[in-house]
């Protein structure tokens, strides 16, 4: 339903152009419900503002933090992950980014995720389930700069792999930080090689930096094996 006029058109007999005084209670409710629906749609369908620089895709920022002592499962992971906001233009991206802590200043076991709007930062999402990710482990002190370079390359469409990119993650851990970029098709070697080469170029990493590609099916298997053995404690 596009707007409240369509809603009225569908429901009544077409006499809504006549002045009937105040609407009946049921109609009033309908209009209010529809306004609520409009607000939800507006929040979901973010568009570039006038004069702003549009992005190829809309994106959503997410944040997650492991809560100690709670059982880890797909369900609790989904509950733990918080949506910060979505954007459609370069200017809107900077507005969110400049109002968020830098990854290097995060404490504890936490992650920032930046994914295309509509893709959840989860292995199980339809866009991710056949996919995988490039992982780069970083010594402490590099995360903020590398994360910024990574997401600027993604938003600026520097990877040149069509629709393949799903999103990027920075994971702050105890002794190291990890950045990763997720793509749709793990079996597409031309795509994964191109992503790797672009990563090397845009991140300006030291030559000895190790890059590892991991399929999400391997990640799921490793996670299930581990949690089967240690009785479900910890994150993913």
């Amino acid at each position, binding site marked *: 339903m596009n707007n409240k006029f369509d809603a009225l058109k569908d429901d009544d007999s077409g006499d809504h152009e006549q002045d009937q005084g105040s609407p009946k209670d049921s109609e009033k409710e309908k209009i209010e419900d529809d306004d609520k629906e409009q607000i939800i749609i507006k*929040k979901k369908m973010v568009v570039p*503002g006038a*004069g*702003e*620089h*549009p*992005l*190829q895709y809309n994106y959503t920022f997410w*944040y997650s933090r492991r809560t100690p002592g709670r059982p880890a499962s797909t369900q609790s992971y989904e509950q733990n992950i*918080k*949506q*910060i*906001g979505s*954007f459609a233009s*370069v*200017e*809107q991206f*900077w*507005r*969110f*980014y*400049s*109002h*968020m*802590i*830098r990854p290097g200043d*995060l404490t504890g076991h936490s992650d920032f995720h930046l994914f295309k709007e509509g893709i959840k930062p989860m292995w199980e999402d339809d866009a991710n389930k056949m996919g995988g990710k490039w992982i780069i482990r970083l010594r402490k002190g590099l995360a*903020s*700069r590398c994360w*910024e*370079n990574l997401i*600027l*390359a993604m*938003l*600026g*469409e*520097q990877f040149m792999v069509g629709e393949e990119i799903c999103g990027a993650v920075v994971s702050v851990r105890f002794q190291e930080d990890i950045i990763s970029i997720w793509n749709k098709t793990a079996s597409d070697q031309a795509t994964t090689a191109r992503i790797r080469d672009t990563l090397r170029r*845009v991140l300006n990493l030291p030559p000895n930096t190790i890059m590892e590609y991991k399929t999400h099916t391997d990640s799921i298997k490793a996670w299930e094996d581990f949690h089967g053995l240690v009785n479900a404690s910890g994150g993913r």
Partner: protein
Amino acid sequence: MEVSRKRLFLKHLEPARPLRRHAQLDVARISYTRGFLIDLASSPEAKKRPEHLPEHPIVLTEAVRCVQVQDF
């Protein structure tokens, strides 16, 4: 005279063709270099607080500059 004026008026009311814009977007992807994106970070539009920002420990009250601008 009257008729032709009316026709002219109606011609201006022909619907726009929004699909043409989308067709163009499909051909060329919108790409930006890192330098261009960083330059835009300094624009006043980029520093405004987003409308629907949740209250959260990782959300800042004041905007901070991007890492690249901070360091150089």
